[in-house]
């Protein structure tokens, strides 16, 4: 049976898993949904007795739908990316429903299930879910009300900690292309611009170290990250600007993370925690599509092997 990898061509992180699967003798078909229709072909038939048969094909290979053991949703593009402008939106929707519907109908195992993945993209849902799971989360306000933002800032100015501002989505503006790391909000900030777009403000956690905790199934890979120069957002530094240490997490954190993943119905996630001055972890986010190979390179922890092993399990 075959592992189906959904990602773009430039995804070298996926390459590492493809090579690992190949070494295990597990067949792989890699495709980018952005190439459908076009270089990717699909045929799927659902018979009156509920049998789902058909195939997916690329210039590099072909798989019968009933032979897909697992689907790794990595960096898939949107179908219809290469069709002409006329009726493009309609073609995209038709093809999206066809491809993702066919894969949902196969009964294959998912890393991660597309519905769970979509829900987990919402930062506010993440924070509420993390708190319910027993993780400590920073007080967070998302608002378009400048007065509400100013009151929130005063609360944390009075408490002596201040605020940070970050993107609600984690995405960066592209027109023109900008980078938006987490940033400290200065005491004199003018919140008028909050009215122009939903804005995510968050209690600033005093920290010296971050924890990047990658979880694959029931395997935990904790990497402690300490920037050489104190910074709010280590993710925008070159890897060699921080010290990386493979470490452990205690039973309480492990159990809370497990509860989060169960509620989120995720098989994979990369968690970011801030470690405060008392050594306590604060949940910042859980990225269900988070990168991991850079952390493996820095720490030597075998995340690629863990993902390949999870994907290689045969479906029931």
């Amino acid at each position: 049976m075959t592992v189906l990898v959904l990602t773009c061509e430039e995804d070298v992180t996926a390459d590492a898993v493809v090579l690992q699967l190949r070494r295990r003798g597990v067949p792989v078909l890699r495709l980018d949904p952005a190439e459908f229709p076009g270089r990717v072909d699909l045929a799927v038939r659902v018979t009156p007795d509920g049998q789902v048969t058909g195939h997916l094909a690329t210039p590099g290979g072909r798989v019968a739908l009933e032979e897909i053991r697992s689907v790794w949703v990595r960096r898939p593009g949107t179908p219809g990316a290469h069709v002409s402008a006329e009726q493009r939106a309609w073609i995209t929707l038709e093809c999206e429903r066809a491809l993702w519907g066919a894969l949902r109908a196969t009964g294959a195992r998912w890393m991660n299930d597309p519905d769970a993945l979509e829900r987990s993209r919402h930062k506010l849902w993440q924070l509420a879910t993390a708190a319910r799971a027993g993780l400590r989360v920073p007080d967070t306000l998302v608002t378009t009300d400048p007065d509400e933002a100013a009151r929130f800032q005063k609360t944390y100015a009075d408490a002596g900690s201040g605020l940070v501002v970050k993107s609600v989505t984690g995405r960066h503006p592209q027109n023109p292309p900008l980078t938006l790391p987490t940033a400290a909000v200065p005491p004199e900030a003018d919140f008028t611009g909050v009215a122009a777009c939903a804005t995510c403000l968050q209690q600033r956690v005093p920290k010296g170290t971050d924890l990047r905790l990658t979880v694959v199934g029931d395997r935990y890979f904790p990497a402690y990250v300490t920037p050489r120069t104190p910074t709010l957002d280590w993710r925008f530094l070159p890897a060699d600007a921080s010290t990386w240490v493979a470490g452990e997490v205690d039973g309480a954190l492990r159990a809370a993370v497990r509860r989060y993943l169960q509620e989120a119905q995720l098989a994979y996630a990369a968690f970011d925690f801030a470690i405060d001055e008392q050594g306590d972890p604060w949940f910042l986010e859980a990225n269900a599509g988070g990168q991991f190979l850079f952390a493996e390179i820095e720490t030597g922890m075998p995340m690629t092997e863990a993902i390949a092993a999870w994907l290689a399990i045969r479906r029931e």
Partner: protein
Amino acid sequence: MTMTPFALQYARPQTGEPAAPYAFDQAEQVNVLAGGGYAAEDTALLARLGSTASTAGSKTHWDD
């Protein structure tokens, strides 16, 4: 005049990504270096390019 979103006061210009010395090989289903070998196995190169970093990704594909 359009109001600038609050968060964008803290944004900075995006730096261009360096050209990758590898290309996707359809038959292999992975990226192959110009001089041969698999890109994913050249960890020094990946670290230098930031190809696998937390912020690495495509503008047109799902990401962080």
